[in-house]
């Protein structure tokens, strides 16, 4: 149920990738998530982007700070559960005004099967806002590219940490029984 057709799945993820390229993102830190799998593949295949797998999402905040110190732009890919791992490290972004954009695939909402995903999923936006990360949310495939572009734009023009929550309704609920 609620699974978008494969062609539209590819489309909005391609739109996000195009926004990352247009913003000259050179480093991508990620903890794999099914919802990000196509974007991760696109980043890995791009010679101008260094895709860095992380053991925990908080590592990405340090990576993005270091990238900016060295003159490169970084974005991070993670699942909503990983946002909770980042909280103290986001003090680095705030204290130094390091620009970065975090793309978050949501769990614990539309069509969630696993109740253990719900506590962090329902507080992901509040947790980010508690640390003064500017949060946008995408519900519809056609909004994904422009929303990510806007989040990147204000992050790097305004020296801010921004996040885009990609809703579970957009991604499609995880199928547990195949």
């Amino acid at each position: 149920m609620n699974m978008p057709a494969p062609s539209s799945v590819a489309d909005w993820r391609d739109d996000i990738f195009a926004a990352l390229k247009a913003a000259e993102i050179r480093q991508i830190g990620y903890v794999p998530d099914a919802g990000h799998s196509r974007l991760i593949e696109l980043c890995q295949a791009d010679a101008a982007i260094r895709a860095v797998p992380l053991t925990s999402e908080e590592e990405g905040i340090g990576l993005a700070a270091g990238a900016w110190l060295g003159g490169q732009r970084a974005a991070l890919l993670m699942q909503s559960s990983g946002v909770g791992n980042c909280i103290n490290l986001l003090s680095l972004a705030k204290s130094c005004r390091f620009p970065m954009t975090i793309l978050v695939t949501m769990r614990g909402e539309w069509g969630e099967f696993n109740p253990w995903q719900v506590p962090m999923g329902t507080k992901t936006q509040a947790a980010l806002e508690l640390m003064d990360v500017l949060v946008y949310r995408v519900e519809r495939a056609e909004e994904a590219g422009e929303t990510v572009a806007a989040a990147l734009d204000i992050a790097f023009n305004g020296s801010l940490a921004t996040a885009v929550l990609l809703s579970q309704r957009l991604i499609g609920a995880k199928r547990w029984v195949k």
Partner: protein
Amino acid sequence: MHAAKGNDPRLDRREAMRVLLDRRGEMLLVTGLGSTTWDAAAVGDDARNFYLWGAMGAAAMVGLGLAIAQPERRVLVVTGDGEMLMGLGALATIGVQCPPNLALAVFDNARYAETGMQPSHTDYGVSLCGVARSCGIESVYDITDKAALDDFARLIHTADRTLFARIAIQADEPPRVLPSRDGVLLKNRFRHALGVE
């Protein structure tokens, strides 16, 4: 289980930092919360130093992002055993990337010096060199004397691979030398020094 290392040979932390930064050239430095930041400031403030005043566990990852962004420059991260222990996963992440211009040096006094000298996991026998090696970092050095430190300090400038050193230092607290706490200032002057601002 407790394996006190009080009798092991150990170096003076300020002298160790001075050796690592001697003739630094264009090398970039990242220090961790907190004593390694005071050590770097004591040796001499520099726009090419980025001091972490928080974000415990992040020093190695800041070094990785910086090393990837600046492949033509040497990047040295100096942090403490407690700070490294909080971000051990970074060693696995760095082991996968292995940028040839990155060197990590962990000042190991086996103590949380800033909070009252409580023993850290290294005091109980955890080997940071063992972790680094297991994470795929091939050039790992366990440094307990001045000659080995001198060799490592020279190697940083010529190596074509990621380096990791655990440097045994005395558990003392030299007078604090505090650099600026203004994160935006530290960031901007670093970027100006690199010509990327």
